[in-house]
């Protein structure tokens, strides 16, 4: 008999997420994803100085302020007609890259790893490695004091990595990773002042000139991080992916085969060439990457707590009027669609778009970067097998995040070399009387778009569609599920008390709910009606 399992809060993500799954015969039969927190950030931007948008929107998210601040800067650049100097473009790339590194490390080790590693197994470590013995001492102390928070309680499962040697190594890396992501934040603050809530990018450019000394300070930390990504992060992913019990996760957790990337990291001054290319894929046809057209983005609110008048609009004229308790609605997230389709965004979308362009020869062999890396790690056969099967699940999502982290970190050394101390960093432009702008970037969690309408030199409307709104979206007008909802279908849940596979799947998307629920229409900010469910 079917049963409904509610998971609220889904922890080790950013923000407030509730997942309901209907389970029948030990498998997920249906799923609903609900965002349960609302702030309404854009409304306070109405009537404000357009430059404020960067500082305010970066407060949408404390994990990814960089991405919002960067999207807002590109958005304003577009509205103002800025010609971005190369130094500014490169510093923005470098800082965005540093944020990818800190975010990806944080995600795998601190948000996801506890779903796979048995921390308790560490007490059985019998090796002689001094660092690992110290980890064992730490965990043994917690166990002895009968105070094992925050590692316990947890969902129980018989497939945690429980080999004492391996578990201890991984827990050791969990602790090391805290220091590594801290270094990535230091790297950011060299150019951008501080993290989180940075200050170093502004409409028109950046605030800090590259110098021999800040380049050196950045490069020293980058070198350390690159070494760690190569030798620890990527290797740990390969190790976890090799665990026999996890083989089903190569395909389980597939989101439906549609992937979208706006493209990230500009390689030229007008942003036509991207280090991570733009494009979209439908029906898991990886080799057939299609050209992205930003006019095909719409948002549906049929099952969201917003008035029906907000249905089907492009974000340029988007409306966001909350209606808490609306019949049939179950989330503060809207349902963004591309050409009417739900799309997974994020590292897997970007890597599949890149792989598709490389495999189909649209990127010439001398410029390919992903497939050569995949080959060097011995993963090419696996990737081809999954592409043939037409399914990419939980493990590929983690693995591609790690590979992307390496690709970006390696490229950052190149960008550092291209900086030119003494050259311009800023293009000063007046605020126009009336103008539209948009800034499309890639954040660690996926495609992010900001749209602005300036009128009377002030902000008239500001809208954002963030990665998690794509991934954690509820059903749309046609009743089609969002990517996370689709990915949950069919997952094994043998024990209703311990739905570990459900959270494994949800976390593989690295959801960020504060990002996803931030909007309100500036002209209609009143709650129109309210019914307690």
């Amino acid at each position, binding site marked *: 008999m079917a049963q*409904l399992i509610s998971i*609220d*809060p*889904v*922890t*080790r993500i*950013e*923000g*407030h997420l509730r997942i*309901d799954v*209907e389970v029948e015969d030990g498998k997920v039969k249906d799923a*609903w994803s609900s965002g*349960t*927190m*609302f*702030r*309404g*950030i854009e409304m306070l931007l109405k009537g*404000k*100085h357009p430059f404020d948008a960067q*500082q305010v929107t970066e*407060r*949408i998210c*404390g*994990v990814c302020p960089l991405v919002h601040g960067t999207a807002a800067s590109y958005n304003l650049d577009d509205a103002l007609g800025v010609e971005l100097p190369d130094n500014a473009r490169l510093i923005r790339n470098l800082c965005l890259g540093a944020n990818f590194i800190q975010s990806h490390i944080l995600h795998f080790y*601190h948000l996801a790893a506890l779903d796979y590693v048995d921390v308790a197994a560490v007490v059985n470590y019998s090796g002689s490695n001094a660092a690992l013995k*110290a980890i*064992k001492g730490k965990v043994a*102390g917690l166990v002895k004091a009968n105070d094992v*928070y*925050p590692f316990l*309680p*947890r*969902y129980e499962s018989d497939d945690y990595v429980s080999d004492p040697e391996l578990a201890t190594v991984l827990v050791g890396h969990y602790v090391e990773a*805290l220091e590594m*992501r*801290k270094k990535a*934040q*230091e790297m950011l603050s*060299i150019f951008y*002042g501080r*993290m989180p809530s*940075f*200050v170093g990018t*502004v409409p028109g*450019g950046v*605030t*800090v000139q590259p*110098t021999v000394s800040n380049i050196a300070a950045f490069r020293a930390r980058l070198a350390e991080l690159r070494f760690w990504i190569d030798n620890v992060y990527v290797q740990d992913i390969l190790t976890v992916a090799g665990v026999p019990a996890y083989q089903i996760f190569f395909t389980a957790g597939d989101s439906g085969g549609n992937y979208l990337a706006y493209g990230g990291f500009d390689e030229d001054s007008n942003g036509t060439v991207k280090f991570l290319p733009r494009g979209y894929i439908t029906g898991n046809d990886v080799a057939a990457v299609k050209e992205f057209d930003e006019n095909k983005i719409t948002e549906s609110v049929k099952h969201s707590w917003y008035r029906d008048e907000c249905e089907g609009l492009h974000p340029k004229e988007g409306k966001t009027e909350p209606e808490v308790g609306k019949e049939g609605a179950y989330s503060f997230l809207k349902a963004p669609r591309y050409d009417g389709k739900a799309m997974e965004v994020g590292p897997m979308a970007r890597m599949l778009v890149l792989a598709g362009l490389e495999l189909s020869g649209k990127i010439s062999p001398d410029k390919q970067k992903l497939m050569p890396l995949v080959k060097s790690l011995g993963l090419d056969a696996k990737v081809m097998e999954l592409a043939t099967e037409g399914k990419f699940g939980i493990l590929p999502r983690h693995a591609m995040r790690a590979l992307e982290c390496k690709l970006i970190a390696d490229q950052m050394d190149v960008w550092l070399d291209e900086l030119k101390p003494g050259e311009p*960093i*800023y293009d000063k432009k007046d605020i126009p009387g009336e103008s539209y702008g948009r800034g499309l970037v890639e954040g660690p969690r996926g495609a992010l778009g900001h749209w602005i309408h300036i009128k009377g030199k002030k902000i008239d409307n500001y809208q954002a569609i963030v990665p998690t709104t794509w991934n954690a979206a509820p059903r749309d007008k046609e009743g089609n599920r969002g990517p996370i909802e689709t990915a949950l279908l069919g997952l094994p849940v043998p024990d209703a008390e311990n*739905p570990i596979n459900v*959270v494994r799947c949800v976390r593989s998307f690295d959801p960020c709910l*504060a990002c996803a629920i931030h909007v*309100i229409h500036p002209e209609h*900010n*009143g*709650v129109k009606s309210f019914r*307690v*469910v």
Partner: protein
Amino acid sequence: MEGKGVTRRQFIKYAGATAALLGLSQSLVPEIARALEELTSGKPPVLWIQGQNCTGCSVSFLNTNFPNAAELVLDKLSVRYHPTVMAAAGDLAFGVLEETAKELAGKYVLVVEGPVPTAEGGEFCTFGLEKETASFNGYQRRKDKPMTVWMEELVPGAAAIIALGNCASFGGIPAANASVTGTKAVQDIVKEISKDKPVINIGGCPSHPDWFVGTVLDYLINKRVPELDKHNRPKAFFGKLIHENCERRASFDAGLFLEDWNDNNPDMKLCLFKMGCKGPVTYADCPTRRWNSGVNWCVGANAPCHGCAEPTFYKDLSPLYEPLPNVNFLGINTTAETLGWVAAGATAAGIGAHYLYKQLGKKAPEGGEQ
């Protein structure tokens, strides 16, 4: 100590760093070490909940150095609930909240990140499940539990309440939308629930990890609420005006202002007042403490201070990139009537001598007020 993987020498070094963090004399290191050792044997339980937050203060907390995050979370505190860190999810997770509140009433530290929306029955922020159910796709599903209800359950038993970050302390950006969401600062919610329960506000958007860790250690070592300013912020961290301690103060006094980021000679630390710097009205120790292991801070990145530690941030400090209007510069310190001020007024065309002169003679307000 050895059993926990920490050598004696490391521990004393760490006690010394703690003394430095709290601004205490190094002669107190042995005492701090003793207090910290006591702590390890009876780790205080921490419940860290999130309202209308962005997790920026949690991410900032992870950047802590002395002690580092792993030491704090595993060795010094018993972090029973933290939604971004804990292994548990769903029933298991909020079960810990409910159990700790019951079993350790009067003993736990409640950390609140993000403010609390009160409109529409609190439905703008929920986590965990109520006992009552409602129908959902043919099932009876347990209802979402509002943050307001959690506050009612958790506040009475808290030994101490820390509002972390400007949003929790003063409402911050979400409160600018209070007409819709009914957002309130933590201290205002607490007042309604348990009148005399003290709330320590640790401002900043985000909060600096040292401000939080320092306050917690101070509280645990000295077993008292640290000295607070009129906004209930620890004076140790929020007692000084940014402008007073700014590394670019000399440029301000000399009337050397940045007006275009391309004008900046990296070796010339030009004053950012004309770029909208809110340092003259913001109380925090950023200029001396700096951020991210001391690597930099906002003004160090050639960008204006946006005043994120002030109760008036963001709404009343906008536009962020326009010079402050009508600032009482004499609020800075008692030495304001120096030649520097006159020189600044006389040479800085954008500000105007008459403007600065107009400010002369006004009475200096208490810390934290503009």
